[in-house]
């Protein structure tokens, strides 16, 4: 990596960030803005949908229908990418139920993970996941928390070459194993990384996000609300009046706009059980976005210094 050139690219991209909002693929005001996956040039909306905990509702028919309604609102608002994992209990099955009841929307961008130590059992696990979703193939397959990545990555690359999936990625969260992540990003031809980034957990700004830009790796952001804890804390303070300058009507939009306005971020994947929240989250990907100065102001304000 060449730190100086990377920093220049990052600063350049940050300066251009406000243009990325409305200009980047925003077909109409209500549709979410998109960003391109560098390895293919395909554009995806800046906000997706996570499913950890929220979609693990088991066989509860009423709760499954409620999850399907969240998905319906998500697609109706222009959302595409849904993220899950075999680790999330019944979440994959609940996604499959939702997709089936919505008539299998063609727009879905399916992102799942392989999460098993034994490399030989990776393919079987992915096949089970695929059947649970009810999709012909996954768009993105990620190695969950880098578990046995050395054995899974070659399998994923082979599957991609054979057309059995479209993109390969790795994930981490809560700031873990950033060193390993960096080494893999620098050495492996992956398309995506998934990591934790939000108004307070910002370690990835130092190395991983600049490296993703430099290497042309798309970035999915998990825990944009710190699993809700960030929003709980922010709710104690009123939203500042200047949030209107970037069209924020809630703390959730404030937090999301901060994340998705980073030029290295391709898509944030907040999880929710609520239709109103999913609409609010998708709406954050539209209209005006913060520029670098505004981003700094947002972070300072949340840190209690603004």
């Amino acid at each position, binding site marked *: 990596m060449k730190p100086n050139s990377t920093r220049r690219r990052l600063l350049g991209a940050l300066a251009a960030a406000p243009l990325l909002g409305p200009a980047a693929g925003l077909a109409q005001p209500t549709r979410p803005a998109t960003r391109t996956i560098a390895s293919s040039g395909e554009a995806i909306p800046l906000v997706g949908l996570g499913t950890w*905990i929220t979609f*693990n509702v*088991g066989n509860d028919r009423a*709760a499954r229908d409620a999850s399907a309604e969240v998905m319906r609102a998500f697609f109706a608002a222009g959302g595409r990418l849904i993220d899950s994992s075999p680790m999330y*209990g019944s979440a994959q*099955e609940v996604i499959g139920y939702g997709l089936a009841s919505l008539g299998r929307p063609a727009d879905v961008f399916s992102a799942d993970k392989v999460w098993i130590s034994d490399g030989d059992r990776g393919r079987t696990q992915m096949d089970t996941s695929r059947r649970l979703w009810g999709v012909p193939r996954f768009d993105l397959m990620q190695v969950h*928390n880098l578990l046995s990545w050395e054995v899974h990555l070659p399998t994923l690359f082979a599957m991609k070459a054979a057309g059995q999936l479209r993109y390969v990625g790795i994930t981490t969260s*809560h700031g873990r194993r950033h060193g390993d992540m960096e080494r893999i990003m620098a050495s492996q031809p992956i398309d995506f990384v998934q990591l934790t980034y939000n108004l307070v957990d910002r370690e990835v700004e130092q190395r991983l996000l600049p490296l993703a830009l430099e290497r042309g790796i798309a970035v999915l952001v998990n825990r944009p609300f710190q699993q809700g804890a960030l929003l709980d804390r922010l709710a104690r303070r009123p939203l500042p009046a200047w949030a209107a300058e970037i069209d924020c009507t809630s703390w959730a939009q404030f937090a999301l706009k901060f994340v998705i306005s980073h030029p290295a971020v391709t898509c944030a994947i907040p999880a929710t*059980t609520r239709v109103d929240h999913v609409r609010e989250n998708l709406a954050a990907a539209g209209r005006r976005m913060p520029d670098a100065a505004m981003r700094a102001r947002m972070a300072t304000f949340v840190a209690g210094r603004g």
Partner: protein
Amino acid sequence: MSEWWTYSLRDLLLFSSRTYTRLFELHNQEWWPLPLFALALGAVLFALAWRGGERAGRALLLVLAACWLWVAWAWHAQRYAPINWAAEYFAWAWGVQAVLLGLVAWQGRFDAAPAAALRRGFGLFLVGAAWVIYPLLAPLLGRGWTPAELFGMAPDPTALATLGVLLTIKQRQAGGLFPIPAAVPPDQREATLWAMDAPEFWIAPLASLPCGPAFVLAYLPGCGDKPGTQCPPRVA
């Protein structure tokens, strides 16, 4: 995962407390009127534990064996497994405990004399709490009666009642029956509620509290029991 120690309890959560509560609601609804039978069975359990003696002891362990087997299948394997992949292992542990209880009921040697007052009193309290207090928690927490956790239907009150019963009977092999039920209250679900800051998070440590005294009473020779009391030789 090679870095388990970097995970906090919150990171390992799998479901919300609302989803967990719904499981009990669906369990009671779908097996109705079995919950009524379970309540009646709790009364029988309490009466037998109160009565004491060898025949009551065997009957108690048989009832418990059946309950553990039922909870292993109906709760862990069928109800809980879809939202928690670890439930499959819990089901096996509950099955093992059912077999152990059955074996001791069938083959074990019992002392006809009642257990010492402290041990017996504490045991009866646990059985009573599992039978009556546990089902009251859901309505007390404002969730209504439908998700009530009942002895014989739900894991925690069943394990708690088992600890109580084991204290009321004097049985030589009973020591081997303690570890699994004692491990139940602090299980992953309790930890989950704790990590989620669910309103009933305080039940986890509270439900685990009896395990300490129960262990002491069960394992320390002469503790809570008359020193030198002997089980009669086994009749072939």
